[in-house]
């Protein structure tokens, strides 16, 4: 196989990417933490970050695995309450220095793991079903989580989630930096998994489950794996949400919330991580930018969803996935790549 293209060799690519990412994190944190940026703007950025993680995590189960789970908010809720209860229990607000950061890291990891466990518990039965049935059963589970969070205290006999009145005075541990860090880590981890044999297995299930099975892919295992990963990151996002808001209510994690996240994924293009990132950003920032718009937000959401499905069901970016080094390659080989693309579609 001869290559006339100039390619960047593997280890170099990773180095370039890593350096760029670290620079980006440092630069943006410095920028945001400076006086140039208002607290309001910082808050919006944090919410954008949380929504990015939510969209990107849902994309694993919808875009990559090809299912339509409608209970994503349930996993977010699990993570949020896990993080909130944990942070209150260890009294993180009073911690200082290293202990403080340790608590934050522990809360995030714990939230993800607990949400991930729910992902397995729900995924194993739910993923036996397909299509519409999977959609409804995950919807059912999401609602049950909400109902349980609202009423569990009466069963337990003590105050755990504080039910409908809400879990309050959660230490506000969420900052721009740790949101950004979580966003970057989530995206990187998901990307690493998808560009491996595990990721290919997941995609093959989406494409043709029967064929995947005939190639030796253990479909149940990978379906649960994708679902669990999706739940894990939703849980992390939930924890960040708890640390941002400072208080939680079960009613904010209902079917509506799951749909809000779904809209982001659908708009961006199911199967495109970049698409999810972009649309999460746009759909969070836009209503804020146009304050008067905010009453209409949900109406516009719904309209966007419907119109998108009718006119461009593959979303803005379809299944296009982002690769920094691939862009650099294209820049280095402009004519070749144009010609190759044409040839490919003619074959």
């Amino acid at each position, binding site marked *: 196989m001869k290559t006339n293209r100039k390619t960047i060799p593997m280890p170099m690519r990773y180095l370039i990417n890593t350096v760029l990412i670290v620079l980006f994190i440092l630069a943006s944190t410095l920028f945001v933490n400076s006086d140039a940026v208002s607290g309001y703007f910082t808050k919006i950025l944090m919410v954008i970050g949380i929504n990015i993680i939510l969209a990107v995590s849902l994309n694993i189960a919808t875009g990559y695995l090809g299912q339509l789970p409608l209970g994503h908010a349930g996993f977010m809720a699990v993570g949020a309450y896990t993080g909130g209860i944990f942070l209150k229990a260890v009294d993180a607000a009073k911690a200082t220095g290293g202990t403080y950061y340790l608590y934050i890291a522990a809360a995030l990891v714990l939230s993800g793991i607990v949400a991930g466990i729910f992902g397995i518990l729900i995924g194993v039965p739910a993923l036996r079903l397909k299509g519409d049935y999977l959609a409804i059963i995950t919807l059912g589970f999401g609602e049950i989580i909400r109902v349980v969070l609202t009423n569990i205290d009466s069963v337990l006999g003590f105050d755990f989630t504080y039910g409908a009145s809400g879990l309050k005075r959660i230490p506000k541990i969420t900052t721009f930096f740790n949101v950004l860090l979580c966003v970057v880590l989530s995206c990187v981890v998901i990307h690493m*998994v998808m560009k491996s044999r595990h990721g290919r297995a997941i*995609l*093959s299930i989406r494409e043709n489950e*029967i064929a995947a099975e005939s190639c030796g892919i253990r479909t149940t295992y990978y379906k649960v794996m994708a679902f669990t990963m999706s739940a894990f990151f939703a849980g992390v996002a939930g924890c960040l949400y708890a640390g941002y808001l400072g208080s939680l209510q079960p009613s904010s994690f209902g079917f509506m919330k799951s749909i809000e996240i779904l809209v982001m994924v659908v708009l961006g293009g199911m199967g495109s991580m970049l698409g999810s990132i972009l649309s999460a950003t746009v759909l969070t920032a836009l209503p804020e930018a146009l304050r008067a718009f905010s009453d209409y937000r949900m109406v516009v959401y719904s309209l966007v969803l419907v119109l998108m499905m009718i006119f461009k069901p593959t979303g803005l970016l379809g299944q296009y996935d982002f690769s920094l080094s691939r862009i650099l390659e294209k820049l280095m080989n402009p004519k070749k790549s144009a010609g190759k693309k044409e040839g490919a579609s003619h074959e």
Partner: protein
Amino acid sequence: MSEQKTKLVEVPGGIIPERDVGQPPVLEVRHLGIDFGGLTAVDDFDFVIGKDEIGGLIGPNGAGKTTVFNLLTNVYQPTRGHILLGGVDTRGKKTYEVNKLGIARTFQNIRLFKTLTVLDNVLIGMHNGMGYNLGSSVLRLPAYWKQEKEAKQQALSLLSIFDMQDLAEVHAGNLPYGAQRRLEIVRALATNPKILLLDEPAAGMNPSETAELMENIRRIRDRFGIAVILIEHDMNLVMNICEGIAVLNYGRIIAKGTPEEIRKNPVVIEAYLGKKGDAADAES
């Protein structure tokens, strides 16, 4: 390629090529049968295939040939009978386990991973040939790099059998029909099987493509030492390449033997090849 006439000998269970005698048959099927509700789709299906034999399964449409393939790969669980792959009974196993044990297949209606590239399609076939775990993927440990590189080389080498290595980055759904069929075969090969089930691989091919396919199947068999079972309607292909043929009608085997024997078998002629005059045409 020389056209040696294979001599089939009787072994317990059926007939296999003389050269394979002494080794355990790669696949042995005994009294396989399946009922769908009140309908018996396949019944009393006995079959043995030698280690690197090219066998054929023919019969009129609806005879149950694809059903047999589905049974062999445990897509359907048989109602009765046994499937022994290298001596191991596959009853109750899932399809992916059966593939790991050594059966790979292609599909009558092509089942490719359409939005993935040609290379990815083959790499998915190589999934179980790589062993690195999730941790290795996330942390990009050396095992990941090494195994991915080897897999890619192996995949390209498999694609080169059909001269498709330059199509590696093309999306499978964009390939022309014939290339899609060939890709399915490559993908099946990538799973490192002991036996390859090809469901109408020559469908939609013109005579020169079919001749090429014949060459390639023989080459695959010689290079990898695997058995091949073909479901086909193209009699030219079947008679030329298959060493042993089983004829299926209404879910039952009505004849077994070498191509010559089958060609002359009156039961087969009546059920499938039509009257004597048509059989003579098929021969040419």
